[in-house]
């Protein structure tokens, strides 16, 4: 298991760079991950997605599908792709401090 420094914290990450313990996540870490992914500022809309993903992960052990995100978080598929350009489920999972989603949808 690798560790890395981010926003002044030391966190454990897997080989793809995703945090392995979602409980050691905080907002500063999220901001730092987002900047690394080219997202300068996390807005309220980003935070809705992040919170939804963390809740799903806590309940089911994996992030939600885009379809579920769309239907249950109130953020449309279109907006999701605008908020997290270049791979919404993966990027949002990284920023939310959860493991990479396992689904194909």
């Amino acid at each position, binding site marked *: 298991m690798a560790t890395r420094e981010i926003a002044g914290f030391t966190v454990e990450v897997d080989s793809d760079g995703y945090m392995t313990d979602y409980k050691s996540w905080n907002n500063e870490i999220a901001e730092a991950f987002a900047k690394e992914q080219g997202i300068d500022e996390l807005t309220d809309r980003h935070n809705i997605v992040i919170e939804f993903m963390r809740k799903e992960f806590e309940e089911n052990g994996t992030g939600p599908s*885009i379809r*579920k995100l769309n239907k249950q978080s109130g953020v449309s*598929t279109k907006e999701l*792709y605008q908020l997290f350009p*270049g791979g919404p489920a*993966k990027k949002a999972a990284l920023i939310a401090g959860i493991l990479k989603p396992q*689904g194909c*949808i």
Partner: protein
Amino acid sequence: MSEYEPVKKVSLVCAKGGLEEVYPSLIMANGARMEGIEASIFFTFFGLNAIVKKTHENLKVATVGNAALNLAMPMLKMPITMPFPTLLGAIPGVSNFATWLMKREMEKLDVPPVGEFLEMMSDAGVELYACKMTVDMYGLTIDDFVPQVNGIMTVGEFYEKSAGAQIIFT
């Protein structure tokens, strides 16, 4: 991390119109967008069924002459090695049943029905095209297609549009 260049763009060709033949194209194109890869699908021949307004919600799993139906056996609590007799498949309702079964399993995996899938993909930025030659052959017009379809293209335009893409025939 991979030492190879990541895939940046894919062009899928969907040439068959059975439910189990259309889903792979949809899943792969949508999956590409989820990875930040540009994606488009060119629907041709029987694949047009998947984007025609009147037919796209009624795609079927063929139960006659479909040699891979043994894969459905575990869903019926039977061994995966058991072949599905093609004569049984000809009985009215059997294809509908197989289709229902597949849709049920797909729903469990959070895979949407074709119509909803096309909307989701279009929102995700997948471009959908109908093949000009087959559109002419079947006597269709752009109005026969679901609104998510971006246009009708010739084979030549498909190749132009696919510049720099990996072309995948499903």
